[in-house]
């Protein structure tokens, strides 16, 4: 790692860091996801076996984490587009980041039960 990678901190830098980290994580998952989906060309059993992994509690919680990463990357990506193309974008970049965080919190709260219901039902009964 190059020395002195901490720029100025605050909203601008940390949203950039979070955008990079979530982007790399999502991209690595995408490789895995195309490979597991490719098993539909092998046999229904092979595919259903690997999908069973996605239904285990630990991986189900990781899916909630994936949703968290994708939602942040999507919302902050729209903010980056506005910063670049909207004449007042750079002026309001901080307010837009806190809007992104607010919308993210609401959507994550809304996704909690639907995404984790499989695990919640398995662990605590239906």
């Amino acid at each position: 790692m190059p020395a002195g990678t901490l720029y100025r901190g605050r909203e601008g830098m940390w949203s950039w860091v979070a955008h990079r980290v979530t982007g790399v994580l999502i991209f690595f998952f995408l490789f895995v996801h195309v490979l597991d989906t490719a098993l539909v060309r092998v046999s229904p059993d092979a595919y259903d076996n690997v999908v069973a992994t996605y239904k285990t509690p630990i991986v189900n919680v990781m899916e909630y984490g994936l949703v968290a990463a994708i939602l942040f990357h999507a919302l902050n990506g729209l903010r980056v587009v506005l910063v670049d193309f909207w004449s007042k974008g750079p002026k309001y970049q901080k307010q837009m980041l806190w809007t992104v965080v607010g919308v993210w919190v609401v959507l994550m709260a809304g996704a909690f039960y639907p995404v984790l219901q499989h695990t919640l039902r398995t662990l605590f009964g239906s």
Partner: protein
Amino acid sequence: MSAETTSAGATANDVRLYDVDNPAPVIEAPRKRTKKTGRASRGNFEMQAWLFMRLSGIVLVVLVLGHLLIQLVLDGGVSKIGFAFVAGRWASPFWQVWDLLMLWLAMLHGANGLRTVINDYAQRDNTRFWLKMLLYTATVFTVLLGTLVIFTFDPNIS
């Protein structure tokens, strides 16, 4: 008094290097392309890549969030996913095109993002080169594999 002195002094000491008969040399803009510019830096690739990230990003927000909604949120979340569910969705050309477009845009968007990350953090020329070769190989392989799977999907396989 002192202001007058300073002002007069400045005028007196202001050595005029350039005037109408002796103009200052023109300094080219840092990124201006000239005939001496190397072939590799003549194109507009980085600008096109920058634009692609924004345009593909906007389309991906719709494609990926729609995908997550169907796969992980609606109708029991991950519980219902299986071979039969995939077969049901890919029976429709609409979802085949949706998934194909999502595959290509997401892979290219991600590959270009990781290319930027590699360029930023890998300092040795050799490391940077080989990391990018690995990235491009994995990307081409995955895009072709995914495309093949969507186009050759057989719901009645074994």
